[in-house]
């Protein structure tokens, strides 16, 4: 039985699965229920001066009959008093001493105010602090949340204020609504952060009602941009986590957030360098019980691959994310269709024909129905010589394993763009002059 526990900045957590700061971690009732269900930790709904919320607060995106593949909210931080929240944290810690409780904090940008709340959080018995520099809606209009996280100097400064009094590790939660999240992570590190968590939600307008013209969620016919999360943001979050993991000036633990809905998602975040993963939308969708398969699935995954500890998979894919210029230009693959598995939908054909490189042929299908005998099998054909190995056909194919990408030996040694340019005696980068002139620089 692999060890699922993790060591996050010296704090041991029973497993890497934490509930992210949000509606599921609003009260001790919820957090205790979550710990009973198996969650390793919980980042408390952000504590600060209590706010007043609107109705409604959430909007979502469905895909076909799948509900809520993306969720948007305009809910603010906790609407309960600071005292109540810290009291409840202490209650939870008494009952669940082994589970990790992270106090998420957000107050106005004054040194004394931050000092005060950090001290109170530590007195409550919280294991870690998470500074909410990410909330993109509402709070940012008041100079908090993303308004801090979007300015590296503020991020560094406020983190350093917190660190002046912090006796427990400090996580800075980053907003993705910046040009380079890794730069912000470095700024947090510069301020003394012990770890970063990312990503917070994305600025979003989740939709417009075509009848009333009102945005969703609608507050009496009007709306405001919200924070977007859920399964649809995962790829963007994975990229941001990997960029932070690779950034030479960061080098502190990461808690990965963004669309995690199952153990597989969680492992991806861990492979890209997240020590813990945080979940919110999926728990809001299905309830705390969803962690059961996360625990079971991760455990099975580790066991099947001979890993003794969850910590063993951390960062295993970080080095596999490279600059494009380092990829092998001589690596060649082509698509192959398994005629036995092919069901004849022609989606590979039309995708390649209209959306890619015209490397698949398909004869026009004859008219016919089963009253006049069996229908002839209709299998498109790959023109291998033309195939550029882009994957699109395999991606649109609805049958698992029907279209595979097969390695072709070109007989040529690996050669990246960088190596190629070096061999040509050129820089792999295009200079701004070249870019603007639209032609190679003089002397070429």
């Amino acid at each position, binding site marked *: 039985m692999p060890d699922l526990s993790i060591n996050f900045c010296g704090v041991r957590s029973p497993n890497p699965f934490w509930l992210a700061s949000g509606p599921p971690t609003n009260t001790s009732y919820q957090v205790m229920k979550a710990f009973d269900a198996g969650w390793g930790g919980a980042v408390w709904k952000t504590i600060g001066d209590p706010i007043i919320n609107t109705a409604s607060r959430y909007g979502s995106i469905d895909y*076909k*009959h799948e509900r809520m593949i993306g969720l948007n909210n305009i809910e603010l931080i906790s609407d309960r008093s600071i005292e109540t929240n810290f009291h409840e944290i202490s209650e939870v810690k008494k009952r669940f001493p082994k589970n990790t409780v992270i106090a998420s904090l957000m107050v106005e940008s004054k040194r004394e105010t931050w000092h005060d709340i950090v001290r109170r959080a530590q007195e409550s018995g919280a294991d870690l602090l998470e500074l909410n520099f990410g909330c993109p809606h509402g709070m940012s209009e008041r100079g908090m949340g993303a308004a801090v996280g979007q300015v590296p100097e503020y991020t560094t400064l406020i983190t350093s204020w917190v660190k002046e009094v912090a006796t427990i590790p400090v996580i800075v939660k980053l907003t993705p609504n910046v040009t380079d999240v890794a730069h912000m992570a470095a700024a947090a590190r510069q301020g003394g952060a012990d770890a970063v968590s990312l990503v917070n939600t994305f600025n979003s307008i989740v939709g417009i009602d075509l009848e009333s013209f009102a945005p969703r969620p609608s507050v009496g016919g009007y709306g405001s941009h919200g924070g977007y999360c859920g399964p649809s943001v995962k790829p963007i979050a994975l990229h941001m986590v990997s960029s932070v993991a690779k950034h030479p000036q960061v080098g502190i633990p990461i808690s990965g957030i963004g669309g995690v809905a199952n153990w597989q998602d969680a492992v991806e975040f861990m492979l890209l360098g997240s020590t813990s993963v945080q979940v919110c939308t999926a728990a809001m969708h299905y309830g705390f019980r969803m962690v059961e398969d996360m625990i079971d699935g991760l455990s099975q995954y580790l066991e099947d691959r001979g890993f003794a500890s969850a910590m063993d998979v951390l960062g295993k894919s970080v080095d596999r994310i490279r600059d494009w210029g380092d990829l092998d230009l001589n690596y060649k693959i082509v698509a192959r269709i398994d005629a036995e598995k092919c*069901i*004849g*939908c022609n989606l590979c054909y039309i995708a390649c024909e209209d959306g890619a490189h015209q490397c698949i042929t398909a004869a026009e299908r004859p008219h*016919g129905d089963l009253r006049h005998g069996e*229908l002839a099998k209709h299998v498109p054909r790959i023109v291998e010589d033309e195939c550029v190995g882009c994957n699109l056909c395999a991606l649109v194919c609805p049958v698992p394993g029907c279209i595979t990408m097969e390695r072709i030996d070109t007989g040529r040694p690996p050669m990246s763009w960088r190596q190629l340019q070096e061999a040509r005696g050129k820089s792999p980068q295009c200079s701004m002059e070249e870019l603007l002139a639209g032609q190679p620089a003089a002397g070429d």
Partner: protein
Amino acid sequence: MHTGPKLTPEQLEENFADINPPLTPSLALEAGSRCLFCYDAPCIKACPTEINIPQFIRQILTQNLVGSARTILSANVLGHSCGRVCPTSVLCEGACVLNAEGKKPVEIGRLQRYAVDHVLDRKIQVLRAGEANGRRVALIGAGPASLSCAAELRRLGYSTVIFDAKPEPGGLNTYGIAAYKMRAADSIREVEMIRGLGVEIRCGVQIGRDVSLAQLEREYDAIFIGVGLGQTEDLSIDAENIRRCVDALSFIEKTKTKGFDHVQVGTKVAVIGGGNTAIDAATAARRLGAEVVYMIYRRSREEMSAFDYEYELANTDGVSFVWQAAPVRVIPDARGRAQALECVRTELGPPDSSGRRSFQPIPGSEFQIEVDMVIKAVGQKKLAFLREIPGLTLDRGKVVVNADTMQTSNPKYFSGGDCVNGGGEVVDAVAHGKRAAKGIHAMLESQRRGVAHA
């Protein structure tokens, strides 16, 4: 008065409730989501009317239900009834690529009905008549072939008049489809939409009796024959004058036009035949309350022309199949009413001209089945009316047409539907009607240009 089984009106309604009820919006979304949106989709190629099925399903998913209905109806004006009565398992759904992966096909028929119901329920006219071109076409018979032909002609700007001897339009859609598949009122509702396109329908008018063919030929530029087939064939046995021996189509028609509690049915019923109409009659008899229904068929299960799902339905309804048995005579009681059916066992030989195995009675193997009603469902006769049309070539009673234009040997006459194919699906008749409309248009256009050039 017949003293057959008596069910309450509520039981009867339940027995004849829609066998394939409409999809709810949520079910339609789920069902439609399964469509892969195939390119050059096989379902389209398997539909005689070539409805762009992936397109109409996509339109359902985008809540463009009027557009979805337009996609369907512009290819098949009887999209509602086809959605309900098509043998989809051998047409569009049989061709669905999901079958090849061992999955259930997309429920195309139900989705089609879902979209068309949206406009029928709201009386939204999605098709538009073309600009009047001053030419007139008469159509004989108000069944699916003529309705489709007339609708297509209206879209091309023709003035169209359909004549039908029956009191209501719709042909077999109104009178001949099992009530649990479609009620007469639904067929009429669909016809009303076609009327809304400007197709004139004169019911209760029999051509040759009330209006002469000569008059039609004088008043119209072209004539479409969509008369279908006639009465059920006679059994080659003595049964015609015995009471409680009825033909399947009249029996089914009663379930469509009278209240179910006004349809007489026996307690023990024999249905003679192995086709889809025989199944309809047998299941109707069971649903009306018959305790035992035998289906008597001369050949075996393999040769039966009824579709598999129809056979399954009869099985589910508790119909008892008597294979390889041919009727010999109906034995009447003292008052001339059927009291037993005498059959003879058959043995099967090599395939005959129909492609099915031939059968031979086995002498001395006669046996009797106690029944109090016999329903014959052994195919329909060809209509003698067709012989009145001058210069019309028939092949074994069926109208011979040019398969591309549906033009008959008399160039003024076009034809389609059961009177051409000897009995097909509604969707085949619709396809014929469409093709005939294009044939008529092409002929009249070339005539017009010929005149202009002269």
